[in-house]
C-alpha cells in the first residue's frame, strides 16, 4: 500500500486543492468486496458522473463520500479533510460533532427523495437551516422560500410531499440541500424513481446548478446528462473504476469491452 497517511496538501494553496480526493478506497459488505482500490479526484466546480451496471458499486462509492457508509481501507478526503476517521494510525472513527460539521458541507440527493412527509415543502427546506445552521426562523423561512422559487416551486411551497409529483418532490429535495450552501452535492440516481416525463425538470435544475459552478458527483443512468453536462465520466464495474475521462473519450473512444458492451445496451434500448 502506498503512503496514504501523509498529508496530501503540502505545498498546495486552498484554491487548487482538489475538492474530493479518493485514494485506494476499498469497502466490503461481509465477505463481498464491493469497492476495490478506487482512485478518483474531483476538482472544484467539476461535474463527475459515475455510470455502470447495477451492483457495480457506484452508489456505495457515493455513500462513502459523506460516510453514510464506512470504508475499511484507503481514504476519502473532502477539501483535504479525512472523511470519517481521525488522522494518524491506527485510525479511529471521527467524533460525531466533526462528522456533522463535515456533512454540513456535503449535500446529498437521494433516489427516493426522502422528504419528511409531516412537513410542507417549505418546512422541509427550512428544517435544516434552523436545526443545523441555527438560523432564526424568519430568516430561514425567507431563504427556504427563495430556494423553492429558484427550483420553480413558488406556488407549491405549502403543499405536503404527498401532494407533489415525483419531479416536484425531487426539486424540493434539491432545494433542501442547496439551501445549506454545500461545497459539493452528491446525487444518488436522482431521476431513477421518476416517470419518464418528469425526468427533464429535475435534470434542468441540475444543469442550472452545474452552470452556477457547483461541484457535483452524480450516480446516474441518464447517459444524455452524462454526455452533455459532465466534465468527466467514470465507469465502474465489479467495484473497479474501469474507465475515467471526459465524456467523449468514455462514450466514443473507449477500447474497454465492458464499457462498449454497457453502452451498446443503452443504444439498443433507446433506438426504436
Amino acid at each position, binding site marked *: 500500500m502506498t503512503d496514504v497517511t501523509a498529508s496530501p496538501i503540502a505545498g498546495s494553496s486552498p484554491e487548487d486543492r482538489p475538492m474530493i480526493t479518493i485514494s485506494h478506497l476499498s469497502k466490503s459488505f461481509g465477505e463481498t468486496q464491493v469497492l476495490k482500490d478506487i482512485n478518483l479526484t474531483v476538482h472544484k466546480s467539476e461535474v463527475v458522473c459515475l455510470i455502470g451496471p447495477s451492483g457495480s458499486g457506484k452508489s456505495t462509492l457515493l455513500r462513502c463520500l459523506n460516510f*453514510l457508509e464506512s470504508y475499511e481501507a484507503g481514504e476519502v478526503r473532502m477539501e483535504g479533510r479525512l472523511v470519517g476517521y481521525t488522522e494518524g494510525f491506527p485510525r479511529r472513527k471521527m467524533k460525531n460533532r466533526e462528522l456533522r460539521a463535515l456533512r454540513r458541507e456535503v449535500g446529498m440527493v*437521494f433516489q427516493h427523495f426522502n422528504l419528511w412527509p409531516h412537513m410542507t415543502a417549505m418546512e422541509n427546506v427550512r428544517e*435544516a437551516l434552523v436545526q*443545523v445552521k441555527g438560523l432564526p426562523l424568519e430568516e430561514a423561512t425567507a431563504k427556504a422560500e427563495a430556494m423553492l422559487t429558484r427550483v420553480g416551486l413558488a406556488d407549491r411551497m405549502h403543499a405536503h410531499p404527498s401532494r407533489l409529483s415525483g419531479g416536484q418532490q425531487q426539486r424540493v429535495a434539491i432545494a433542501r440541500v442547496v439551501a445549506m450552501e454545500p461545497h459539493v452535492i452528491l446525487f444518488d440516481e436522482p431521476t431513477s424513481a421518476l416517470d419518464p416525463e418528469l425526468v427533464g425538470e429535475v435534470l434542468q435544475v441540475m444543469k442550472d446548478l452545474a452552470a452556477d459552478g457547483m461541484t457535483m458527483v452524480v450516480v446516474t443512468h441518464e447517459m444524455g446528462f452524462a454526455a452533455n453536462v459532465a466534465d468527466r465520466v467514470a465507469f465502474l464495474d465489479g467495484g473497479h473504476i474501469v474507465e475515467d475521462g471526459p465524456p467523449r473519450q468514455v462514450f466514443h473512444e473507449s477500447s474497454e469491452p465492458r464499457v462498449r458492451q454497457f453502452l451498446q445496451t443503452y443504444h439498443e434500448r433507446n433506438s426504436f
Partner: protein
Amino acid sequence: MNWDVVTRNLPYLLEGTVMTIAVSLAGILVGQVLGAFICVGRISGGRVGETLGAVYVSFFRGVPLLIQLLLIYYMLPLVGIDVPPLVAAVGALGLASSAYVSEIYRGSLLAIPHGHGEAALALGFSEGSIWRRILLPQAFRLSVPALVNELILLLKASSLISVVGVAELTRVSQSVASSTYRPLEAYMAAGAIYLIINGALALLGVLVERRLARS
C-alpha cells in the same frame, strides 16, 4: 323491565364510573410512560435491552390481566409489601398496557422509511434532533389509531379490578344487581355507560387524527 332501579341507583353508578375513568387514566399514564421507555430500550439498548424488553413484553402480554392483578395483590404482601387495592389495580393495568404500548410505538418507528433519518443525517442533523424533529412526530401520527384502540381495551379491562374490591363501575353494578334482585337492568346500565365512554374515546381519536392530518 324496571328502570326505576337504575334511576334510583344512578348516583352510585356514576360514582363507579368516575372511579373507572380515574383508574383507567392512571393506568394509561403509567402504560404510556413505561411503554415509551421499553420501546427505546428495545430499539437502542443493544442486545441486553432488546432481550430484556422482549421478555418483559412477552410476560405481560402472555399472562392474563386477571392473574397479573391477583399476583400483585396477593404476592407482594408475602414479601412484606402491603398493596392497597387501588395501587394494585393501577399497577396491573399500567404494566399490562405498557407491553402493548411499547409494541405500538416500536411498530410505528419501524414503519418510518430508513431514508428519512438518513436524509437528516446527511444534512448534518444531530441524533437528538433527528429523534425530536423527524422520527417521533411521525411515529406519533402513525400510532394514533392503534393507541386509541389500546385505550379502549384498557378501559374495558378495568372491569377486572372489581375482584380486588375497587368500587368501579362493574363492581357497583354487581352490588346494585344483588341488592335489588334486578341484574339485567343493572348490567345493561353499566354496559351503556361503558359504551358511551368508549364512544367518546373513539371520537377523540378521530379528532386527533384529523387535526394531525391537517397540520
